[in-house]
């Protein structure tokens, strides 16, 4: 009692059953997507697979310290709890102190330890425990905690106005969006990803508690199924429309592309950081489900089962936008989703997508309140997310089935180097 440690990685015991269940789930899902697995095998003939990557090992903690923050190119975990905070203190020193306390707690939590030094049951009996306890006995579950700073933080409250990066420009209004202010924006975000939802929720809950009086939760979002793979060792998952999502995603093995499209450059506080755009995209899945297979595939421009671009055989075959079918029409329609979103249509704009499916119960009208919590990391949203989304918002036939209800934009600083460093240190220096 009181050492604040959860069982170390690989401990045999109660966690083992959980691990087995997860493995079963993970591989089960991949097994259902049989064609997907086949595609993966085909591709591995072309590119050397990174055999050393054990992406789904639930017990292995993801290192917290490093050049870049974890949780970006880290192989996407199964679960998400994303939270956006408003800063409620007007004192810069209190905000910096909070970032220090948060960093210390994050360094512990991501390694499978408790939030505070005395833990959930190690403190004095009269005191409220400094960890809430629901992650006791659970492994680290590859928990990552990734912080970002929203445009609203760079107003006149904390003297940061002249430190706002140009790339953190407010997003334009996109046609057709129905943004709800209460679930959009925020001064600071934390993305908690883990293979176990309880571990992710535990982290967010404890960070929120540490923050009381300095920050207030503005909104938060749970996500249950990753919709992107961020490593070639992962199979491409499916969104709630049943299609593979993120086939053409930036992946951690794409060194050159990551340098060009993901990590911020220059000598300022954002060097080695990246920019995150979040969009909560509500899907009217009931009407989608009544849509014919042919129309669904035409809208996406992909085959539903294998995920292959129309006119091609396998998921990772590059789409041929010029190819025409026997009827003389292009296999991939001029307004198909993959054509509009493809780098070749958008000045070579790549994104590292890291979204999750969500179902927030039902909407009281007999429908699931469901969709995609889209997240994309990039070097500069002005030349990456914005042109892609503008093209989609104007022309994508998918718009008939989706509605953007929340939007967030955050500057995610570089990684925390060591125990003497903290989130945002260079920004507040």
């Amino acid at each position, binding site marked *: 009692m009181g050492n604040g440690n959860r069982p170390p990685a690989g401990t045999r015991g109660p966690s083992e059953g959980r691990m087995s269940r997860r493995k079963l789930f993970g591989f089960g899902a991949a097994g259902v997507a049989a064609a997907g697995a086949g595609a993966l095998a085909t591709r591995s003939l072309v590119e050397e697979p990174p055999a050393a990557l054990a992406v789904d090992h639930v017990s292995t903690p993801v290192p917290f310290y490093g050049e870049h923050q974890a949780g970006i190119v880290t192989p996407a975990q199964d679960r998400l709890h994303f939270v956006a905070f408003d800063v409620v203190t007007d004192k810069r020193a209190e905000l910096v102190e909070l970032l220090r306390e948060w960093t210390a707690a994050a360094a512990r939590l991501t390694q499978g330890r408790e939030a505070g030094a005395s833990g959930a049951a190690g403190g*004095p009996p009269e005191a409220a425990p400094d960890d809430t306890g629901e992650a006791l006995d659970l492994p680290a579950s590859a928990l990552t905690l990734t912080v970002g700073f929203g445009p609203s933080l760079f107003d006149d409250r904390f003297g940061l106005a002249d430190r706002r990066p140009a790339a953190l420009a407010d997003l334009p209004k996109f046609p057709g969006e129905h943004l709800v202010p209460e679930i959009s924006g925020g001064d600071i975000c934390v993305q908690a990803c883990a293979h176990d939802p309880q571990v992710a929720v535990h982290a967010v809950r404890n960070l929120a508690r540490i923050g*009381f*009086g300095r920050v207030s939760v503005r909104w938060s979002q749970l996500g249950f199924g990753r919709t992107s793979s961020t490593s070639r060792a992962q199979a491409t998952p499916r969104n709630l429309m049943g299609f593979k999502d993120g086939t053409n995603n930036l992946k951690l093995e794409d060194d050159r592309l990551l340098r060009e499209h993901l990590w911020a450059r220059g000598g300022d506080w954002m060097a080695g950081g990246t920019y995150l755009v979040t969009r909560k995209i509500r899907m009217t899945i009931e009407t989608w489900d009544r849509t014919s297979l042919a129309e669904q595939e035409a809208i996406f421009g992909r085959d539903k089962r294998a995920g292959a671009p129309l006119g091609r055989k396998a998921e990772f075959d590059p789409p041929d936008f010029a190819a025409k079918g026997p009827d003389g029409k292009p296999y991939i329609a001029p307004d198909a989703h993959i054509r509009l979103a493809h780098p070749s249509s958008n000045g070579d704009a790549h994104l590292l997508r890291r979204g999750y499916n969500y179902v927030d119960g039902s909407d009281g009208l007999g429908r699931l309140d469901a969709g995609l919590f889209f997240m994309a990391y990039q070097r500069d949203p002005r030349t990456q997310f914005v042109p892609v989304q503008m093209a989609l918002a104007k022309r994508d036939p998918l718009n008939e089935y989706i509605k953007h209800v929340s939007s967030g934009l955050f500057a995610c600083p570089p990684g925390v180097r060591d125990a003497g460093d903290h989130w945002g240190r260079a920004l507040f220096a």
Partner: protein
Amino acid sequence: MSRPASRGPGLAIAALALTGLAACGSGEPAAVGASAPAEPGKITVAASDTECRPAVTEVPAGTTTFAITNGGSKVTEFYVYAPGDRVMAEVENIVPGLTRDLIAELPAGTYETACKPGMVGKGIRNPLKVTGEHKPLTADAKLARATADYKRYVKSQTGTLLVKTEEFVDAVKAGDIEQAKALYPVSRTYWERIEPVAEIFGDLDPAIDAREADLAEGEEWTGFHRIEKDLWITKDVRGDGPIADKLLADVKTIVAKANATELTPLNLANGAKELLDEVATGKITGEEDIWSHTDLWDFDANLEGSKAAVQALRPVLEERAPDLVKTLDERFAAAEAALAAHQRGDGWRPHDELSKAELKKLSDAINALGEPISGIAPIVAK
């Protein structure tokens, strides 16, 4: 009231030593009479709707008696505050034209006196200097003093609770709905300030303060909220005479018991936390007063009651955790400021008028205060 299931150790672990009504010196509302001329040795205080003038600005350490005369048109209160608004002594419900005495035991130091015409707000303040010999207290004596201070507070609150409940009950029995509606949140204020003490006496708290939703099927419903529903919804209190009589009888019983109960410093710490929990679960949500929407009156009373318990512990906390005291001061001030934005006249805006954004601000302020308050218990338990 708090839901029975959530009732923690809090004040309920107090040793229920029923010691009888030992008068503990100050805080006793004394002779209520027509403006008697000041006796020798008493400090007269001339109070009005706009002024609060003690005859002197400096008194010797030890026991001082103030004689407060209300020459204004609003009911007033008189307080002596130590730094951080720790209530050293107070007398409430001084109606226009009357004089009431207040006995205060004050060690050397700087204080403030305050009159509160209309019984709301920070009041009209004046400095008061106390000079002379003052023996510093030992740690145990400081803790003992904390509980004694808080008992004095309970005594003053329960005294006014009785008076105001009686007025409320009279109005209900007279069928004067408008008057009863006006008195409902006022009488509850004194109840809500000390509710954790009242909760010690398990079955009396629900009898006085149960909400309709709290009841099990077939359970009899009595108390404030039963009458609240008749005042605001059925608009007919003709059948409420027995309910009103029972309410007053229950309040009398609980007041006698509360004043006879021994409290520990840990009771104070947990009571302060429980009062904020009440705000967070019942008042911010509007569940406390679902028909009258007077939740913010209760909110204010819970906040004041919590602060009174914390301030009684202040000398101990200043010694053991000065940083915590600083945080508590800031966050109490922030919570009070957040609430003050909703003051209307001598009262508060109805809960159902507040927007979600306004309620979130209040919720943030209570969460910000609740965390450091939960840190008091382990410090006084050391």
